[in-house]
């Protein structure tokens, strides 16, 4: 085909020349130069986007523009044009189109951008500004141009992709004027790209970007979707309406756009669900409420729950997160979920998922109870051996006391939770609603009329409707509620047994009320679960008896203190042992029984006897492993300190009582063991307690004695007065302890070092360190030893003449 074209072209040019010479003989050269000037393929000699020279202008005038100059009438018809002139014009048009097509297809593959085609079109249209080839029939050129655009769009994929990209960039950069050009091009081309489709797609992307910018990390606004939508419409809608060619008040379209904003909001919030529900809570409450309004589809909910759980699993349910933090996060998420979905349906999925993870944490129940009770730190350290961040625990306790979800709120425990949250959501209007029964009634009616059944494929309903308050959800974490309650009882038991006097503080009494209420409700709610009900009623009964015992003890104590013979420093508690999970007879239990000091034993015996008189038919047994003794230790140097200790510890320290003369008493382990009638191991444990308190110490003769005056003793031994003047008792003891530890550890590592050097000759300290790290058993704790520590150990061995240092600073065995 391509070979035919030049032939056709030649014929065409010949025809043009023939007619030209007929019309204006002797102007063949001029005509030829006109054709060359027009020809887009003659890049070197054509117009080159420059106006024609004067001679060429004349030629144009003569051959092409003459008819229009003379007889172009206002109505656009040609009159007085003779046939040849007309034919010449037609041929010139054909020639030009021919050349343009040739040029276009020649460059076809190089047209990749919108700019390319714009430049090319300018190039093709430039001569037409001077030569009025299509003046008579402008449509012809437009059709030709649009056909070329159409072809380009359909066949040049690269261009199509680039164009789409270009439009996207323009829209995203808010360059709507240029975007308008592209849209016009697309509309005129009527090709494979439909401007409306692209525009709508781009608008969605634009909305998505706009939403990301205006919604992400913004949780405190109440009507964020509406606000964002409004600012979008204000800023962009006029442009988009123009580009789409629709009226600005097309409410159908704007409603769809609003829905897009809602969808984007949901998408963004699902992505951020962990931050919204946990990190930013409670500041994120407004956004959760807005989510509640917008989230309707179960699919969205499912996605939200899944996203939440995966984030929760990754960030919270891993061993590096402390139980307090995990619990805090969980409490926040419960609140958030209940805000979002007051029925608790989706929360149930979360509860089921996290349950297993939380159950692995054994200290969970204690921490939860401590948080519920808001216990003071010293109480925690009494009962738990875990490092707990008190600040975080305090926050957790405060979180549990959130007035909106208060664990103590009664109406939720007894009534329907949803009712409670509804009133929370309508906080501002609740006053009105309460005063106007008509409104309340309307609300109920409206709810009834608009009720729709839950889709059957939604997430399954919770097994029970127990999500009535925060505490219920929290207790759901455990294997059973009885477990939680029995743990609470354990704690209560501990608390009451170590309680000074007979009054529980406010936190405890509040919590007790709560538990009682809970047990009562549970009992009435589960008539079918006999075993559970039995266990719960037993728990509730135990609790009641324990409290009654404490109360009765107080009354009895008051009566007893009125008896002159009894020591008023004793505050006895009389417990019904079966309800305190205790055995009565421990006489043969060597872990509990011990011999009290005569004085104390005598005083307590008096109480026993009085009790027998006051309560006929009953007897008492002292629980030696329970109770608290408050004692004061005063040293010769006037230093006094108070301690709250167990009976056993008190008895042990009383053995060292120097009396009024403040004499120093030294006892061996055996003596203490005999006097207290306990095993040596147990005696050592008790003495260790007092050593830990820096009250006792063990001297070099293995005798235990009080630390008072110890400073002078050490000074005398070491004969270095300048050193000891600043020594405190503690530092002195710890220094001694350190020395002992160092010796012990060096003895442990010596066999390894010896073996190593025996096999390998001499080694540098780095090498020994590296080898010890690898070879020593883990339980020796070598991980904690640094390079410098090892060096000091090695120098100790050198001092002991076990090792020698060589000139290259390596160590070797002596002999």
């Amino acid at each position, binding site marked *: 085909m391509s070979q035919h074209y030049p032939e056709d072209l030649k014929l065409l040019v010949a025809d043009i020349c023939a007619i030209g010479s007929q019309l204006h003989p002797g102007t063949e050269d001029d005509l030829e130069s006109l054709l060359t000037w027009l020809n887009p393929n003659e890049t070197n000699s054509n117009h080159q986007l420059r106006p024609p020279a004067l001679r060429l202008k004349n030629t144009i005038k003569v051959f092409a523009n003459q008819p229009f100059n003379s007889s172009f009438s206002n109505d656009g018809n040609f009159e007085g044009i003779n046939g040849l002139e007309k034919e010449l014009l037609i041929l010139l048009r054909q020639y030009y189109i021919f050349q343009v097509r040739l040029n276009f297809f020649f460059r076809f593959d190089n047209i990749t951008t919108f700019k390319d085609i714009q430049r090319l079109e300018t190039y093709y249209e430039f001569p037409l500004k001077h030569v009025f080839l299509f003046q008579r029939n402008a449509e012809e050129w437009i059709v030709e141009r649009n056909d070329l655009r159409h072809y380009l769009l359909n066949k040049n994929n690269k261009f199509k992709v680039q164009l789409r990209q270009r439009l996207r960039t323009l829209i995203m950069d808010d360059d709507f004027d240029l975007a308008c050009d592209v849209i016009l091009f697309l509309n005129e081309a009527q090709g494979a790209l439909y401007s409306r489709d692209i525009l709508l797609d781009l608008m969605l992307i634009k909305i998505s970007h706009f939403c990301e910018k205006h919604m992400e990390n913004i949780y405190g606004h109440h009507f964020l979707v509406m606000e964002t939508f409004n600012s979008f419409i204000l800023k962009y809608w006029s442009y988009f309406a123009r580009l789409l060619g629709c009226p600005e008040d097309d409410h159908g379209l704007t409603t769809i756009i609003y829905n897009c904003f809602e969808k984007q909001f949901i998408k963004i919030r699902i992505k951020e669900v962990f931050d919204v529900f946990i990190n930013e809570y409670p500041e994120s409450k407004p956004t959760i409420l807005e989510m509640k309004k917008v989230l309707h589809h179960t699919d969205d909910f499912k996605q939200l729950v899944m996203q939440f759980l995966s984030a929760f699993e990754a960030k919270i349910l891993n061993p590096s997160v402390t139980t307090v933090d995990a619990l805090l996060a969980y409490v926040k998420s419960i609140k958030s979920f209940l805000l979002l979905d007051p029925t608790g349906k989706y929360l149930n999925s979360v509860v089921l998922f996290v349950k297993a993870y939380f159950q692995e944490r054994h200290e969970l129940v204690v921490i939860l109870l401590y948080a519920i009770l808001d216990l003071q730190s010293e109480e925690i350290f009494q009962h738990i051996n875990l490092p707990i961040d008190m600040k975080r625990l305090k926050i957790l306790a405060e979180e549990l006391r959130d007035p909106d979800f208060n664990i103590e709120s009664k109406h939720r425990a007894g009534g329907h939770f949803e009712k409670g949250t509804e009133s929370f959501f309508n906080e501002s209007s609740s006053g009105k609603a309460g005063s106007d029964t008509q409104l309340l009634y309307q609300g109920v009616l409206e709810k009834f009329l608009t009720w729709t059944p839950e889709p059957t494929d939604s997430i399954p309903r919770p097994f029970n409707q127990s999500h009535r308050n925060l505490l219920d959800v929290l207790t759901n974490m455990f294997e059973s509620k009885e477990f939680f309650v029995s743990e609470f009882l354990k704690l209560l038991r501990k608390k009451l047994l170590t309680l000074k006097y007979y009054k529980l503080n406010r936190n405890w009494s509040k919590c007790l009320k709560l538990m009682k209420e809970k047990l009562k409700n549970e009992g009435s709610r589960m008539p079918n679960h006999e075993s559970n009900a039995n266990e719960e009623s037993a728990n509730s009964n135990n609790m009641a008896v324990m409290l009654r015992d404490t109360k009765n003890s107080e009354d009895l104590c008051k009566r007893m203190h009125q008896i002159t013979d009894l020591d008023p420093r004793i505050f006895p508690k009389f417990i*019904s042992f079966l309800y305190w999970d205790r055995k009565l007879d421990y006489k043969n239990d060597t872990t509990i029984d011990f011999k009290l000091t005569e004085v104390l034993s005598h005083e307590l015996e008096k109480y026993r006897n009085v009790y027998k008189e006051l309560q006929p038919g*009953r007897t008492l047994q002292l629980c030696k492993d329970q109770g*608290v003794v408050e*004692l004061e230790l005063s040293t010769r140097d006037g230093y006094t300190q108070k301690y709250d200790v167990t009976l056993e510890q008190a008895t042990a320290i009383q053995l060292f*009582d120097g009396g009024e003369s403040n004499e120093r008493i030294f006892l061996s382990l055996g003596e203490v063991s005999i006097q207290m009638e306990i095993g040596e191991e147990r005696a050592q444990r008790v003495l260790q307690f007092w050593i830990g308190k820096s009250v006792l110490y063990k001297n070099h003769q293995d005798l235990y004695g009080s630390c008072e005056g110890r400073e002078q003793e050490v000074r005398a031994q070491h004969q270095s007065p300048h050193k000891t003047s600043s020594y405190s008792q503690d530092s002195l003891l710890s220094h001694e302890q350190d020395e002992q530890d160092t010796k012990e550890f060096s003895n442990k590592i010596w066999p390894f070092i010896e073996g190593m050097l025996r096999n390998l000759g001499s080694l540098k300290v780095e090498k020994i360190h590296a080898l010890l790290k690898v070879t020593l058993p883990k339980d020796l704790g070598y991980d904690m030893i640094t390079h410098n520590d090892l060096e000091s150990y090695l120098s100790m061995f050198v001092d002991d003449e076990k090792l020698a240092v060589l000139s290259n600073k390596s160590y070797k065995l002596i002999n």
Partner: protein
Amino acid sequence: MKVTIKEVHSVFAWSWLISNHAKENGESKNDVDDEEDVCGICRASFNATCPGCTYPGDECPLVVGDCNHSFHVHCIYRWLDTTSSKGLCPMCRQPFQLKRGLAINDSHIKKFQDLHLRRTQGQAQEALAEGDEEALGRVADQQSHGNGIIDEQGDVIMEQGLVVR
């Protein structure tokens, strides 16, 4: 060093003194172990409550019979209040009477006396209606025997460990 005790918050466990009665009754050691801690009627521990009570101790005390069998007061009263009990101890089938002189029994004597009276009156009425003179005589015997419960015996030291008057 001087150690001064400021306060002692001690804990005592109370329990009913019951073990001695059964032992005195000549029951074998094994039986004592098995039976001593539980009420023969409700099978709950003496130191716990009968099924109807919540708080042990003052609100659900024990009583000791002449036969040295102990029961929660509510259990034995309810038992004696039934016609089928015929006023007998459910353990040894002897006529049940509260042991005299025991302080733990004192506060219940009046109640048990009324119950006894009511039962014998009922029996007498029945016998009268049937015209059974022999039965009437038996009831009269029972009544005089029953009154024995409240005979003023004065202060008698009965057992070690129980407060007696």
